């Protein structure tokens, strides 16, 4: 039962982060907080991939001449993938912030109920 033992702590961390992100994205009323929750969810995935790459006793995958054998380094591929995921996260947050600023400038608030109320009035 690897999952329950403390050794799989990081998988628990991923699950918690994911759930926190999902829950508060749905439960929060402020749009900006929803956005932050989205970022938490993205971080959860990044931690998941990095946890995959870990090897016990592996060192940072930087080419040091003294270490020759491969399994001394941890698996660099997930790290590269997560670089892209971080960039994607940043650009999504960028677009979302641009949307929120237009909303804020138009409605003066970021609370979803108020925004929707003003929306219904103008409809």
């Amino acid at each position, binding site marked *: 039962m690897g999952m329950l033992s403390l050794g799989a702590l990081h998988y628990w961390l991923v699950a918690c982060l*994911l759930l926190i992100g*999902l829950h508060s*994205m749905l439960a929060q009323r402020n*749009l900006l907080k*929803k*956005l932050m929750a*989205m970022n938490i*969810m*993205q971080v*959860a*995935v990044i931690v*998941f*991939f990095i946890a*995959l790459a870990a090897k016990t006793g592996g060192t940072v995958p930087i080419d040091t001449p003294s270490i020759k054998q491969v399994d001394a380094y941890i698996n660099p591929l*997930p790290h590269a*993938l997560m670089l*892209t*995921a971080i960039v*994607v996260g940043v*650009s*999504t947050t960028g*677009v*979302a912030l*641009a*949307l*929120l600023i*237009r*909303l804020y400038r*138009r409605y003066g608030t970021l609370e979803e109920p108020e*925004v*929707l109320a003003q*929306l219904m009035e103008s*409809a």
Partner: protein
Amino acid sequence: MTAHVPALLVVLPLLAAVLVPLLALRSVPLAQLIAMLSVGGVILGAGLALRRVLIHGTWHYALGGWAPPWGIEYVIDPLAAGMALLISSMALPALLYAGPVVAAWSAGQVGAFYSLFLLLVTGLLGMVVTGDVFNLYVFLEISSLAAYALLATGGIRAVVATFRYLLIGTIAATFYLLGVGYLYAITGTLNMADLTAQLATLHTSSAFVVAVAFLAIGLAIKAALFPLHAWLPDVYTYAPAPVSGFIAAVMAKVSVYALLRLLVFVLRAEGAAGQALLLLHWAAVVAVLAGALLALAQQDLRRMLAYSSVGQMATIVLGITLGTPAALLGALLHMLNHAVMKGCLFLALGGVQWRTGQVQLADFVGMGQRMPLTMAAFGVAAASMIGLPPTAGFFSKWYLLTGALEAQDWLAVLVLVGSSVLSLIYFFRVLEVAYFRQPGVQALQRELPWRMLTPMVVLATLVVLLGVWNQVIVTQVLQYALPHGVAWPRT
């Protein structure tokens, strides 16, 4: 030059997307021309790829010279080439259509609009062409981001809808990424062909179920399958006309293509993938009826079309999950037909809203006289959605029904017929109001500019041509796009 078509399919629109904003500052028509030329080039490339693939079989193109499973590999088979052709040929009319709509904008905004549009096309083409599961995620995000930005150009209500779509879309992408992560954890590879080879190891591990679950849910959200479709109606309703015309026609279909590619072509519908298909089957059965019923209840025509899209997406998924060859043929043919039909409908409706600002059913009185050509295109596309014989919709419904009968799935048969009867009602409502109800004042004719009319008319005639020549399409192309040696559903 033609040896590098797979890569060029993606790079050409990318380069155009980079060039267009700079050109637009200098002269907008030139920028529009470049955009259309690049999409035209992609159509040519996709056509060449399709022809070559039909003759020589699947085309593997290792990017950067790195052989798989290390490097990213572009794999083009008849299905991928057909989808690429569909995406690019639906982008051209939308681009032409966008001309007058963006005429009032500043040069910077026009440049941004066309650049985002081309990025969207790049993302979708990339998703269709790639043979690497993570690369599919990257292109999924590129297309989604471009779509978010494009949809937000539609006014303040569009911004609210787009923000909600952004959140839900990111959830979907994150789920997909988690699925990819689990697959990578089990097999250690991201290449699709390699994944298929290591199917045996996949079965043994329990993580495979979680991986398939995440993949399926993520892509189902993007494909707006019924319980997960909440983002779609607002987004399609408030999007500007050319954007909704293109996105409604193609974007959700690429996610359905990804579902088909992953669950059937890559995971051979074995083990958890087979059960996922079964669950999708029941979701699709419910979704087909739900989409049609919800569409019936709408007064705003764009929202009606949006819910009708949810129903039609579910019909395609139903066709896929039925599993019999005829149903699959029907699903692929319906992907093609629905893209053309729905694109024409949204362009026509967008045109009416652009010209008269009204899209409520009640405002359509006498629209047949006011905008004859637009309503004629709308009428032909509606006839095809209903499934009247000479049009394309009839034949894809025919194959779907045959497939359902072959699978002895009476519920699917009932649902298919029920949804076409419902679509008959909610489409005919519009035609009756537009053509047969006498307008009070004699409506003067205010037709759309030619740049908006030609795409609509071309799509409308294409709907009829696709219907009459569907036999050629099915026997020459779609037949080879089917997955070989995979049988499901495993009840």
